[in-house]
């Protein structure tokens, strides 16, 4: 299915958010996620299903003022 990840649309076979992070090489990285503009806590990634057209944001700590 087509999913927009950090603003870039791509084909992804993962059924859940946890599976998507694994498929996208985030294993072990400290990241937070939001699906279609809503925060998804880490504990809910296994049970959060992905659907065609979803918008997924994956963020990490960065420099800030």
């Amino acid at each position, binding site marked *: 299915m087509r999913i927009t990840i950090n603003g870039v649309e791509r084909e992804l076979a993962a059924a859940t958010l946890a599976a998507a992070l694994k498929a996208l090489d985030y294993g072990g*990285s400290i*990241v937070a996620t939001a699906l279609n503009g809503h925060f998804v806590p880490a504990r809910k990634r296994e049970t959060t299903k992905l659907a065609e057209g979803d918008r997924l944001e994956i*963020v990490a700590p960065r*420099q*800030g003022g």
Partner: protein
Amino acid sequence: MRLYEVEVASRLLLGTAQYPSPSILAEAVRASSADIVTVSLRRESGRLREGQDFWSLIRELGVRVLPNTAGCHSVKEAVTTAEMAREIFATDWIKLEVIGEADTLQPDVFGLAEAARILCADGFSVFPYMTEDLVVADRLLEAGCKVLMPWGAPIGSGKGLNNPFGLRALRAHFSDVPLIIDAGVGLPSHAAAAMELGYDAILLNTAVAKAGDPPAMARAFALAIEAGRAAYLAGPMEARDMAAPSTPVIGKPSLTG
């Protein structure tokens, strides 16, 4: 200084962006003696993992982090960013920015109050980036904020304190609330001036990061903030328009011919 029940020694809060290199950032943080640094959240690539190294560096410095919602222009964006920040940084602290105008980066104070209400009700300790408006300050305190952060001047402008009158009024109206000048400070003298007005702390980034020697400038700011605080506690004299001789007039010998 107490910020949300946390005792903080340094009155300088330092931003972590725009330094020439990670090692200069680390040196500047150490030179500043800051206990708190601001950080953000940005998109991470699974392949590049840029954020992971940065986060390791900050953790090695042993400082407390204040995550921001920089760049958010709506209540929803700011609230979602705060939720993500709480999970990643394991802190309820959030520097709440809801930007309302692109040229001045001034806050949308209506959205700010709304986002502050939502986040305070959800257990966040909110540090709102605000204008020096007294009514906005009241609304933010009603929303549950226990610290206020008025701007000195637009973010990154380095202009100092644009409205000393407004900042003095804010200090006088909210004498028991920790007030931190956030944004616009360009020189140590600006920071000292704010501290002399009775402000509790200064949050700055660009003035240190863009200095020729960031660690040296961080040290200069730390000294200025300490001096300004000491001056405030010492009770500055009242300014006046006319001269007043400091040397006693009585006892001056008559030496005219």
